[in-house]
């Protein structure tokens, strides 16, 4: 007995394996014929309605930073953040003082007359 299927390519009936005949193309057993109804995030909303609640590249931390930097603890602004500021300041100052010393030594050596 011949089995047939409708060929989507030639648009005619062609010979087929029994499984293809029992399962017309497009339909497989256990799979529903229609895709399930899509569920969007509810309620769906238009982007323009999202407004200020949508974060783009992070939330606004400026009010917190303003409060933090305005504490009246007498600490100058370049050290206000505490440890990371101190670390950077001390490194910079060490390079400053070390650099001045190194510079004076280098200039002293450079000022020596060349021996013949």
């Amino acid at each position, binding site marked *: 007995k011949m089995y047939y299927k409708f060929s989507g390519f030639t648009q005619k009936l062609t010979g087929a394996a029994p499984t293809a005949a029992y399962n017309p193309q497009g339909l497989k057993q256990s799979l529903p014929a229609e895709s399930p109804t899509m569920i969007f995030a509810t309620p769906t909303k238009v982007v323009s309605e999202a407004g200020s609640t949508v974060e783009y590249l992070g939330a606004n931390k400026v009010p917190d930073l303003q409060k933090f930097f305005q504490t009246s603890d007498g600490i100058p602004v370049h050290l206000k953040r505490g440890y990371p500021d101190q670390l950077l300041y001390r490194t910079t100052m060490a390079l400053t003082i070390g650099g001045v010393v190194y*510079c004076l030594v280098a200039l002293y050596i450079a000022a020596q007359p060349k021996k013949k």
Partner: protein
Amino acid sequence: MAHQAHAYHMVDPSPWPLTGAVAALLMTSGLAIWMHFHTMTLMSLGLLLLLLTMYQWWRDIIREGTFQGHHTPPVQKGLRYGMILFITSEVFFFLGFFWAFYHSSLAPTPELGGCWPPTGITTLNPFEVPLLNTAVLLASGVTVTWAHHSIMEGQRKQAIQSLTLTILLGFYFTALQAMEYYEAPFTIADGVYGSTFFVATGFHGLHVIIGSTFLAVCLLRQAQYHFTSDHHFGFEAAAWYWHFVDVVWLFLYISIYWWGS
């Protein structure tokens, strides 16, 4: 909390003017030491100190303005005057190099063959990459203006996008110019043509890099909500600087690339 009866900014004591001055000392004497003794240590130390100073000084200005509220309208006015005066001084800086170019090119000496371009110099075609560079910078002037209007209108996403585009155009210019430098048929050592060409365009390129960096910092600040729709002077200063860089290029293009070819 504030105990002052005026709107001006009495700055906290700061170490950065000192570290910056020392950086200048180390860079200049380091340059001399490099020339005579071939070691770059002192100069590099000065450069590192300069970068540390710039980072911390400008970080502190952001803290004082954005977080502590010290940039009142009269203070901001002073900052505007300051930026205008600085850019004016840069205009004079470039004026010197244009003077040198015109001095040599308007009356070419016999040693050059009595002509401009000098004998033996193959100039760059002004209608190839240099013209593209002109278009790139002009476009970046449009995008930076777009960014400004976006900030003023409170359009956060558009401001970020147009500012990013501006910076990318700046990088594109730098990349194209670097390629031109590599492929150029003449060097800085090729007489007065080479000298005027590379010194003028070289300093311009450095200013493009500085301007792109300034804009990149503004981008980071815009992403962190530092700018409001009516107070964003840091961005305006960057935009002024960027327009200045664009105008210098236009003069370079007309004078050196086009008239001088």
